[in-house]
Structures are given as C-alpha cells and as structure tokens.
C-alpha cells in the first residue's frame, strides 16, 4: 500500500474506529497512534515526492507537488503533536466535568475526520473535491467547537457554521463558474475541474468569468482563511472550542483555505494574465493585518487574543501570496510553516495556563512564571516568537516578506511595518502581565505536557537560524510553481 | 633651552605676587570708602598666621576634606604656571591650551565644592550648589569668547595666540571688544567678585565661595585663600595675554625681561584698579539675577562671533 494511501486512509479509518471506542484513555492512545502513523507515512510520501518532483495518485484524482506535499507533512506533524497534547489536557477536562465519555468519543472521531478532510483537501487534484473536503473539515470542526455545550460554545459554533456555510457556498458558486467556462474548453467530465489540466489550459479560460469566479472564491475561501471583514467567526470559534481544536483550527484549517485560494489564484492569473487577483489578495491581507492588529489591544479572553493574532498572520501570508513574486511566495510558505508551529504551540500553552488559573480571562491569569515556569516561559517565548523577534523563524519570514514588498510595492512597506508594530504591542501588553508578577492565590497545579510546545518552538528556532537544504528546496520549487519566475537577485 | 627655570621663576612670581595683588584690591577699595586699608602685605600676614595655626577638623570630616585644599591649590598653581606672563614662548604653555587651563580650574572648583558638601552643614551644600550652578552657566560664555579669540590665530594655544596678537598691527576689532567684555564679566563670576559674589561677606544667605570654606582652618584655609588669590591674578594675566600682550618678550634677554616684568605688573595693577572701582560702585546682584548676568555675557560673546564673520572675515 503506497505511503499516500496510508497517509490519507489512516485518519479516515481512525475516525470510524474511534467513534466506536468507549474508554477515553484507549481512545487517546489510538488517536496518538493514528497521528504517528499518518506523520510517518507523510514523511515517506514527502521523500518519494522529493525524488520524483511531483506525482499523481489514484488515476489522477490526487496529485502531489512541492507545494502541497510539505503542507501535508506539516498537517500530519501538527496533528500528531496535537493528539499527543490533547491526551492529558482532555483528561483534565473530564476530571473537571467539562466533558463526558460520550462527547469524548465524538471528539476523537471528529478530530480524525478533520485530519482526513485536511489531507484530502491538500492532495485533491479536483477543485470540486477540494471544496467538498474543506466543507467536510468545517463540519467536523463545527461539532468540535460546540463540544462543551455551554451556551457560549453553541452560539460560537452556530456563528462559525452559518458564516462559514455562507462563505463556503460562495466558494462553490465560484467553482461552478470556473466549471462554466472550463467545460467549454475541457468538456463536461471531471477533466474540467482537474486542477493540473486546468493549469495547463488556464490561458484558454475566459478572463471575465474567471474574474467573477475569483470574486466569489476570494470571499468564500477568504471567510475560512479568516480575512477581514469576513473573520467574525474566527475569534469565537477559537475562544469557545477545546484548546486542541483551537490549535488545529489556527494551525491547519486556515492553511488549507489559504492553499485553496492560492491554487485558484494561479488559475485566475493564468486566465487573466494580469495580477488583479494578486492586488485583491494584497488589499485583503493588509486590511486583516490592521483590523487584527488593532483588535488585539481590546481583548479580554486569552484564546481570542491569539486567534486575532492568527488573523493578523493569515493577513500577512495572503498579502505575501498576493505580491506573488518568487521571494514573496517563499516568504509566505516559510511563514505558513512557522506560524502553524508557533501558533499551535502557543495554544497548547494557553490551554494549560487557562487550566492552571481556572479561567480564560486574561485579568485572572497572573504570574505564570512563578506558578509554573514551564508554562510561563513557554507562553512568553512563544509570544516573542510570534511577534516576529529573532532568532525565531517568524522573524526570518517577515524579513523576507518585507524585502519582497520593497522590491514589488515599496510604499506598502510602511503600512506593513506599522501593522506589525501595533500587533506586537497588542500581544505583549497582555502577555507580559500574565507571564510576570505573582501568581493568583487560587491557581491550581496541573499535569502539563510541554513537550509538544518545546518541539514546536525548537523547530521554529531552527528555521530562524538556518533552513535545511531539502526544506529550502521545497519552498523554492513551490514558490517556482506559484510564480513561474526564477529566483533572481539574491 | 634655559627657559624652563625662567618659566618656573615666572610661575613663582605670579604665585607670590597674588596675595599682594589681593591686598592691593582691598586697600584701594578701603581708600575709595575713605578708610585706611590694611597694607598691601596684609594678605601675606594672614596667610603666615594661618599656616602657623593648628588645624581644627569637624568630627565627620573625611579624607576628601583634608585632600581638597591641596588639589585646589596645586591645580590653580599648575594652571598659573602654564600661563605666559613675561615670556611668550614657554615650554609649559604647551601643557594646556586655554580650554585645558580652564578645566584645570574646574578641577579645583570640583574639589572645593566636594569639600563644601563633606561636613554636611546646610551652608556647605548651599555654597557648593550655587558655585557649581554659576560656574556651569559661566562655562558656555567663557568657551564662546575663547572661540572668538581663537578665530584670529586659528589656535587655542596661548603662545600662538599671543604671537598672533603681537604680529598683527593694532586695529580696532569689534569682535575682540565683545570678547573682552564677556571675558571680564566671566572673570568677575569665576573669582566670586561683586556683583556676583562678595568675597568679604559672611552673611549666611549671600555667601557662595565663603560658605564652602566655612569649616576650614589653619593651613587648609590658608591654601584655599591663597588659591583664590592666585586665581584672581591668573585671570588678570590671562586677560592681559589675550588682549594686551604688548611688552612680552620672545627670548630670554635680561633687559627685555625687566621691561616685560614692569609692563606686566603695571597691567595687572591697572586691571585690579578697575576691578576695585567696579566693586565699589556696583551693588551685588540678587542671586537669581546672576544667571541673567552670565547669559548676557554669553550673548555678548556670541555677538562677538557673529560680528567677526560679518565685519572682519571678508575685510
């Protein structure tokens, strides 16, 4: 059985198995095991892809190139660490009566199904299937967000569901429109939705239709990326769901949506031959950056805080992909990686912090370093990393992004810098008092599992200091795929 | 080069003459106030008496208090010995140009003020505070006038400046006039003379210099007093060197030296006469009018600078 099928099928099977497992402990183990298998397989997959460049699987329904294979590996990795983290975390939740066995079953199986949706989306070669899988992942996470059954969580899930449902519907409409024009080129079969073929024929597609389609796709997938002004669902969904879910939402789901957007942008560019689509993405990116940066200053809930930071970073990536030069795409891909790592790491820490202090209110969280150095430093260092300070990878990618911007649109640099500064202030003003100072009296000791956090931060650190050759190679190829221009200058 | 002994002799002369000069000022003022002043040598007698007396120290005086008089004295004398009085070109004048000279005096002032703070009386602190404040305000004005003077000679090296003045034909230079005015005002402030400070007062609230040395006695007091007298003479000599160096000799020949000596003494006493007149006819300023006095000095010096560029450069 090929590594690809293992990668894809393990979560699916895992999902159905876990739906049947009663005992939460065993379920957690299976969860981890499935994560590990998936990751291993995805690594094998990555290696094989690295050898042959790109490969089609299952009769052209799936295909892998440098762009998505590393995203697959990343997804599998974060999924694995999240599974590892969620074990003790969820046990604590059960112990404190926020969860029961039945919902744990739902949780585990949905978690795996979500993974399946993600991997399916990344590997699908058919933009229709891509849409379906994104919808699948969304539906799975909707159930996860409402897991606690608290009024707030249900309301959040509802908001998430309705807004994303609407968004996704628009995306579908965009897809239909693409089909509308492509069917006249590639006939009425699946070919008309197969990305690789579309890419080859993209110049033949009707520019006007493609532009309209892109408008719908932009708003539709943009909603799921969490771009302002369609981002309203994101803070609630992150804030109310269980922490592992927040971690994968921020770390993975947004990536998938952005991935879809970029894939389709490539088609649109091919059709229109202008970079209007790029400019649209850039403006959405900047808008989100600013909205998020300023919103950061007014948060009360720690998880909402970091979800706004996710919006900010998604804005950055969208902006970078919008620029569309090789360097920019490279930066965006790098940023995608480090953001997933660091942000999910932060969410792990935040979850533990909230458990330790018994609240998600930032006013209630104090003196983490004194109370539990692991959590405190984890949070502080994580924040420093996400705020774009070296030697962490976020700094590297933002550095590259800035230079790319300077090459392409020098003056937007100023906006970018302003946004980054405001955002960094907003994060720090809240994190500092939480990490520092004397802990609150009613803080409880928690069994924490900081290993995933440290692993993530270390990886981000490594990416900040030097990018291993194969990874750089991937980014390079991927960037080359996104823009068929060679890496010049540097 | 036999000028090193000459140099030392000249320095000695200045140091020994200083008390007499102070005595001269005192007696002239006495005359102007229709009193029989003490003789010219009265300061010398005072010093001799103080040197003989035993020192009484406050209980909590630290080594700073005992160390300060020597620093003040030596720094002042060192400065004095760098100033050409008779000879234009003296080896030691290379040691310190005008700026370094001024900062030697600043070193003396620094320790004087520290000594004032050492005992921990209100007086000492008050004196130190005021002294440092005023000197700080005097500094820019002083530097500015030095700047003006250096414009002609392109140098702050006293010897060069003197030579420049000697070699250029006597002509009225407004910039120099401004600089002189500023210099005189600063000299008054630096030496704690009326209208800035009254060296003879012991009225608590008006003392500046006296307040700092209030606790001194015996040889320490003597050194302090002597240092301030030397400083007075030093400034007089400095002004002479910068503005009216005529009569100074380049090489050591007996006749020339004698002439130079006479010229120098006359000029010194001339200046001091002017000083005593000023001190008699001027009233002491209120404390917070002093800053205005000094800033006026600065403005004058700056005008000197401007007038140099406006009137003299292209001329």
């Amino acid at each position, binding site marked *: 059985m090929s590594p690809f099928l293992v990668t894809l099928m393990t979560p699916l099977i895992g999902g159905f198995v876990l739906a049947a497992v009663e005992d939460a402990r065993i379920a957690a183990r299976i969860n981890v095991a499935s994560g590990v298998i998936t990751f291993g397989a995805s690594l094998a997959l990555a290696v094989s892809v690295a050898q042959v460049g790109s490969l089609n699987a299952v009769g052209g329904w799936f295909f892998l190139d440098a762009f998505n294979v590393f995203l697959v590996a990343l997804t599998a990795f974060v999924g694995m660490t999240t599974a590892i983290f969620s074990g003790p975390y969820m046990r604590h939740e059960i112990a404190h009566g926020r969860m029961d066995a039945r919902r744990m079953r739902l949780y585990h199986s949905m978690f795996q199904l979500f993974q399946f949706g993600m991997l399916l989306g990344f590997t699908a070669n*058919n933009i*229709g*299937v891509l*849409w*379906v899988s994104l*919808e*699948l992942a969304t*539906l799975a996470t*909707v*159930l996860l967000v*409402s897991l606690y*059954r608290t*009024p*707030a969580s*249900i*309301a*959040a*899930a*509802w*908001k998430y*569901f*309705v807004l994303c*449902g*609407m968004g996704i*519907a*628009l995306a*579908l*409409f965009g897809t*239909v*429109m693409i*089909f*509308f*024009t492509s*069917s*006249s080129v590639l006939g*009425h*079969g*699946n070919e*008309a*939705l197969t990305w690789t073929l579309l890419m080859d024929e993209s110049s033949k597609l*009707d520019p*006007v*239709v493609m532009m*309209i389609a892109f408008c719908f796709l932009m708003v539709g997938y943009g909603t799921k990326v969490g771009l302002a002004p369609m981002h309203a669902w994101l803070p*609630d969904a992150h*804030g*109310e769901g269980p922490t592992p879910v927040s971690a994968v939402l921020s770390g993975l789901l947004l990536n998938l949506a952005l991935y879809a957007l970029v894939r389709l942008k490539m088609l649109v560019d091919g059709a229109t031959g202008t970079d209007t689509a790029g400019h649209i993405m850039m403006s959405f990116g900047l808008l989100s950056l600013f909205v998020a940066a300023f919103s950061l200053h007014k948060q*009360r*809930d720690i998880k*909402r805080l970091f979800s706004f930071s996710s919006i900010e970073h998604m804005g950055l990536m969208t902006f970078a992909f919008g620029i569309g030069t090789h360097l920019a795409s490279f930066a965006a891909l790098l940023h995608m990686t480090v953001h997933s790592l660091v942000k999910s790491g932060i969410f792990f820490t935040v979850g533990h912090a909230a458990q330790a202090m018994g609240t998600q*209110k930032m*006013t209630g969280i104090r003196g983490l370093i004194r109370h539990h150095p692991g959590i405190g430093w984890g949070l502080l260092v994580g924040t420093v990393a996400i705020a774009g300070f070296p030697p962490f990878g976020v700094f590297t990618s933002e550095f590259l992004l800035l230079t790319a911007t300077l090459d392409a649109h020098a003056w937007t640099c100023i906006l970018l810098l302003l946004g980054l500064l405001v955002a960094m202030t907003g994060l720090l003003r809240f994190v500092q008092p939480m990490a520092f100072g004397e802990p609150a009296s009613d803080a409880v000791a928690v069994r924490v599992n900081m290993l995933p956090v440290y692993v993530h931060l270390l990886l981000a650190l490594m990416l900040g200091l030097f990018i291993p050759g194969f990874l750089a190679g991937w980014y390079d190829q991927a960037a080359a795929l996104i823009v068929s221009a060679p890496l010049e200058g540097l | 080069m036999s000028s090193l002994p000459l140099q030392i002799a000249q320095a000695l002369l200045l140091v020994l003459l200083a008390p007499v000069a102070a005595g001269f000022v005192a007696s002239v003022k006495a005359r102007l106030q229709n009193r029989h002043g003490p003789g010219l040598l009265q300061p010398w007698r005072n010093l001799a008496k103080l040197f003989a007396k035993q020192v009484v120290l406050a209980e909590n005086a630290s080594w700073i208090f005992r160390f300060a008089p020597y620093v003040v004295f030596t720094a002042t004398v060192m400065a004095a010995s760098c100033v050409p009085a008779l000879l234009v070109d003296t080896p030691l004048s290379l040691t310190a140009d005008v700026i370094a000279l001024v900062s030697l005096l600043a070193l003396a002032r620094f320790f004087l003020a520290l000594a004032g703070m050492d005992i921990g009386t209100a007086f000492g602190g008050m004196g130190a505070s005021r002294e440092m404040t005023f000197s700080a305000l005097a500094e820019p004005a002083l530097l500015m006038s030095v700047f003006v003077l250096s414009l002609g000679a392109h140098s702050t090296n006293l010897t060069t400046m003197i030579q420049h003045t000697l070699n250029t034909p006597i002509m009225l230079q407004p910039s120099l006039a401004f600089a002189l005015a500023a210099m005189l005002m600063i000299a008054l402030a630096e030496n704690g003379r009326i209208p800035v400070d009254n060296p003879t007062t012991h009225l608590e609230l008006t003392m500046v210099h006296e307040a700092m040395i209030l606790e001194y006695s015996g040889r320490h007091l003597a050194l302090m007093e002597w240092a301030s007298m030397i400083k007075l003479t030093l400034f007089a000599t400095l002004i002479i060197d910068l503005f009216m160096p005529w009569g100074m000799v380049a090489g050591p020949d007996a006749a020339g030296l004698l002439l130079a000596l006479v010229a120098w003494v006359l000029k010194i006493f001339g200046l001091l006469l002017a000083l005593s007149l000023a001190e008699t006819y001027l009233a002491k300023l209120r404390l917070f009018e002093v800053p205005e006095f000094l800033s006026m000095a600065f403005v004058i010096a700056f005008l000197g600078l401007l007038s140099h560029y406006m009137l003299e450069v292209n001329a």
Partner: protein
Amino acid sequence: MNTALIQQIIDGLAALMLLVSFSLLAQHRMLSVLHWFAVQGWLLAITSAFVAYGTGHHELYVSAAMTLLLKGLLLPWLLWRVIKRLHVHREVEPLVNLTLTMLIALGITLFSFHIIQPIEKISQLLTRDSMAIATACVLLGMLMMITRRKAITQVVGFLAVENALFFAAIGSTNGMPLVVEIGIAFDVLIAALIFGLFFFQIRTTFDSLEVDAMHASLVEREEEE
C-alpha cells in the same frame, strides 16, 4: 421535442426559479416559507430532468432524482418536523420590513444581470441564460439569511443558496461531474442534519431560536467580569 422548445422551457423554469426566490423572501408565515422551499426543490428536479433530456447527459437523471428526494422531500420534511417539535412561532420575524427587502432584492437582481450579461455569450450551451438567474438567486438567498431573525429562517436561506448553486450547476453548465455532485449533496445532507441537531441544542440552551439571544450570550460571555 426540438431544442428550441426545451430552450424556452428551461428559460421559463429559470424565470420560475427567480420568482420562487422572491416569494421565499416575501413570506410572512413559517410554513409557507417551507412550502416555497419545497417548490424550489421540485423546480430544480424538473429542470435537471429537462436538461438531461435535452442534452442527453444521462447521469443528470440521477442527480434529478437525488434532488427530488433530498431537496424536494427530505429537507422540507425535516424542517417541518423541527418546527412542529419546537413549537416555533408561526410568524417570520424580519429585521428589515418586507417592502424594503423587496426593493433591495430587485436591486440585487438588476445588479447580477448587469454583472453576468457580458459573459453569457461565451457559452454555447442551450441553458446559458440561466446563469444570471442563478447568481441572482444566490444573492437573494444571502439576503434572506441577513434579513431574517429566526435561526430556522437563516437555515432556509442557506439551503436556498445551495439550491441556487445547484441550479447554476445544472442550468448553466449542464451539471457538475457526478462525483462532485454526490459530494456536494452529501455535504448538504450532513449540514442539514447538523442544523437539526443545533436547533435542539439551541432550543434547550436558549429556549428560543432567536439568533440575537445567542449573540447576546456570546457578548456577555466576553464582557462578564
């Protein structure tokens, strides 16, 4: 029948589709909303059947059948049960009064015609004209979601959008590939189920289906100190 006739029939159906979307917006009573929604489902089924017949894409018959079952019968029935079980108030409570909604709806329709009109010429399909209608229907569905207060009306709006999409797929592109169709249908089904699930949760937690009630809970959850 000749293609011209089918062409006219399909255009007629498209017109009906638009009409239904408007009447969905215009309803006062919950049940009639459901009725019109069911009608929309039937329309879709019929359209796809005709298209299948007209174009000879026989897999479209399958999707016609699916549509009939899912959107013509199952979903309306589900929603109907929900209303019965939860004793939802019979009135539709609009945020914006109906006349204004209608005006906006007209404007939107014009707008979508303006947008789509230039691109319809590029397609040789006998059903190309319906693209504009489909766009209009999508936007009208969204309008419905925005202007109705009840959660359940939002759902109907959502499903109406889905229908419009489907109509676009059938009408203007002679149907998406079957795999995609099935996938989409599958998702819609799940979505509907989840909606149903939600209604009970919302009902039990908020004892009303007012969206604002939920929002209030979120805000106060955030404000609470």
